[in-house]
């Protein structure tokens, strides 16, 4: 079984999805999806342990060797991502039972869990595969599942949000497809390791440069880098709470992983940062993005929307780290991918609990929450502190590394921008916390959210603190992954 771990992570949700659609009632599909996600988490953790012990793990699909078959190639970077995706799925699914039944109705539950399993499948697939075209297929599997899930939101604006994401997401994926086509023409291979081997010899050609531009633009659309983020706020605001929690924590992160894979492994640091002006393009966009999105989120009356804009800002930090093109920057970027997944997952789950009891997620619904729903409220406070980057939370760990990485390069203005972004986060989180502490409850009869929502929520909140204090695991893996990626090309 250990030899088949990468494919088991994919197979579990792939086979579970059609079964879930055939089951009746809200509970059986939920149970199936939850058990499968726990199984996938187990596989991912075993994989990470194996990668840590034995180095890069290569799985040939169906026993066909690499140039003919598709190979799955697991190193530190994607093992870390896999643990994030399956871990978040394992926490969000137990949470989803009450939240989903409440928000989308019992009759549509089987279809909901089918789509959610397909989303998990797509995201895990993008992460494990070592084939550039296979990434496109899994990208579209996950995107189609995402469009469906967003459209299940209660508000009718969920439909238009989903439609505009469909248009933008398809354009992004097609740009990626064009880029991969150019690479195939130039190298005659789609295997990532082979691409990395053959590209340096022909990196002068304008076809390769065009391919690079198409791929980076396409993926930046998927990861919602400013100014390509326009689909994100509506999609996160109107989709069901459990979907927002899972998407906000994982979907854009997987796109970041694809970008990292292409920039560092396939094209290589010399090409991306030497021959191509990647840093000159991405650093200003990331900084403008993190400052402007943070500023916009201060003015949002809907807290879910505020957190969505904050996600755009956090993507700015992540892209900033990887655009530095140094091992430290990349470490910070990978750390923030993982840590932001934990904090945004927790915060969006808080909003789901608020929506469950109060029926909305506006700042008025949050007023006086410290009195009516203290556990939910304190989860928001801790998640918010993590988002700001207060010491002893995960947010501090990744921002600390990001600042160290910019200091290493002597980029003082960037350090100022990072700190300014944190100050803006203090304002937008503080605004909600103030309303929760000092506001008058809209409806003082409301009680605490049910345990079914609180337990998964607090598991994530505790993870926020745990990985903020005990940074050995995440920092070591992120550093190992960054070293591997910076070494570039093929890890045999």
């Amino acid at each position, binding site marked *: 079984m250990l030899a088949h771990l990468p494919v088991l992570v994919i197979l579990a949700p792939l086979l579970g999805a059609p079964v879930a659609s055939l089951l009746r009632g809200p509970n059986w599909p939920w149970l199936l999806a939850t058990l499968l996600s726990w199984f996938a988490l187990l596989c991912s953790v075993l994989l990470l342990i194996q990668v840590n012990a034995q180095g890069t793990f290569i799985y040939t699909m169906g026993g066909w060797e690499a140039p003919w078959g598709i190979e799955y190639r697991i190193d530190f970077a994607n093992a870390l991502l896999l643990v994030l995706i399956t871990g978040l799925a394992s926490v969000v699914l137990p949470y989803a039972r009450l939240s989903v039944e409440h928000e989308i109705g019992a009759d549509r539950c089987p279809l909901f869990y089918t789509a959610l399993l397909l989303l998990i499948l797509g995201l895990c697939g993008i992460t494990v595969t070592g084939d550039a075209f296979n990434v496109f297929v899994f990208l579209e599997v996950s995107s189609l599942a995402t469009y469906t899930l967003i*459209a299940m939101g209660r508000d009718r604006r969920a*439909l*238009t949000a989903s439609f505009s994401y*469909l*248009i933008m997401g398809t354009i992004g994926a*097609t740009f990626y*497809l064009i880029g991969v*086509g150019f690479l*195939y023409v130039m190298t005659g291979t789609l295997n990532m390791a082979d691409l990395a081997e053959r590209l340096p010899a022909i990196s002068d050609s304008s076809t390769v440069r065009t391919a690079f531009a198409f791929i980076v633009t396409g993926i930046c659309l998927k990861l919602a880098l400013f100014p390509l983020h326009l689909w994100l706020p*509506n999609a996160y605001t109107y989709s069901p709470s459990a979907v927002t929690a899972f998407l906000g924590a994982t979907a854009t992160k997987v796109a970041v992983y694809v970008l990292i894979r292409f920039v560092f492994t396939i094209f290589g640091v010399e090409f991306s940062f030497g021959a191509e002006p990647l840093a000159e393009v991405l650093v200003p966009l990331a900084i403008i993005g993190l400052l402007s999105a943070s500023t916009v989120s201060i003015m949002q009356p809907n807290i879910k929307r505020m957190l969505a804009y904050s996600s755009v800002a956090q993507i700015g930090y992540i892209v900033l780290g990887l655009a530095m093109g140094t091992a430290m920057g990349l470490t910070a970027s990978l750390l923030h991918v993982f840590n932001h997944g934990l904090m945004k997952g927790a915060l969006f789950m808080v909003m789901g609990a608020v929506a469950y009891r109060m029926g909305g997620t506006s700042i008025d619904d949050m007023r006086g929450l410290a009195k009516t729903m203290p556990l939910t409220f304190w989860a928001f406070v801790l998640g918010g502190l993590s988002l700001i980057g207060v010491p002893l939370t995960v947010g501090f760990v990744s921002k600390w590394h990001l600042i160290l990485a910019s200091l290493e390069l002597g980029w003082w203005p960037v350090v100022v921008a990072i700190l300014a972004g944190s100050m803006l986060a203090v304002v937008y989180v503080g605004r909600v916390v103030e309303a929760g502490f000092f506001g008058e409850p809209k409806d003082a009869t409301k009680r605490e959210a049910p345990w079914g929502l609180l337990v998964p929520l607090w598991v994530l909140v505790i993870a926020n603190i745990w990985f903020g204090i005990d940074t050995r695991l995440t920092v070591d893996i992120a550093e190992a992954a960054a070293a591997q990626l910076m070494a570039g090309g093929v890890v045999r």
Partner: protein
Amino acid sequence: MSGLGVWNYVIIIFLMMIGLYMVMSSSNLVKKLIGLNVFQTSVFFLYISFGYIEGATGPVMQEGASLYSNPLPHVLILTAIVVGVATTAVGLALSVRIKESFGTIEEDELHTMDSSL
């Protein structure tokens, strides 16, 4: 290449621009989807053009043939066509539901109904 020259690529770029322009300029959601389809189809043509070799036969072993076309781009594009069909289906289903709940699929009317879009 000599038979077609670069004309196929000129046509592909032409189709690509038509598709993207339709997606951006038309206000009707179904027309947007049609534009998206044209855009995707141009990329399918691009891949098929890559796989074409002047004077080559299909990639099946046969007497008297020494030059074979590359089958891989065709296989890739079959997959991409399936993906495109699925995307169109989801897009059309969304348009139907938008029509049901808003009563229109014109984007500017949708904007005026829900200002936050």
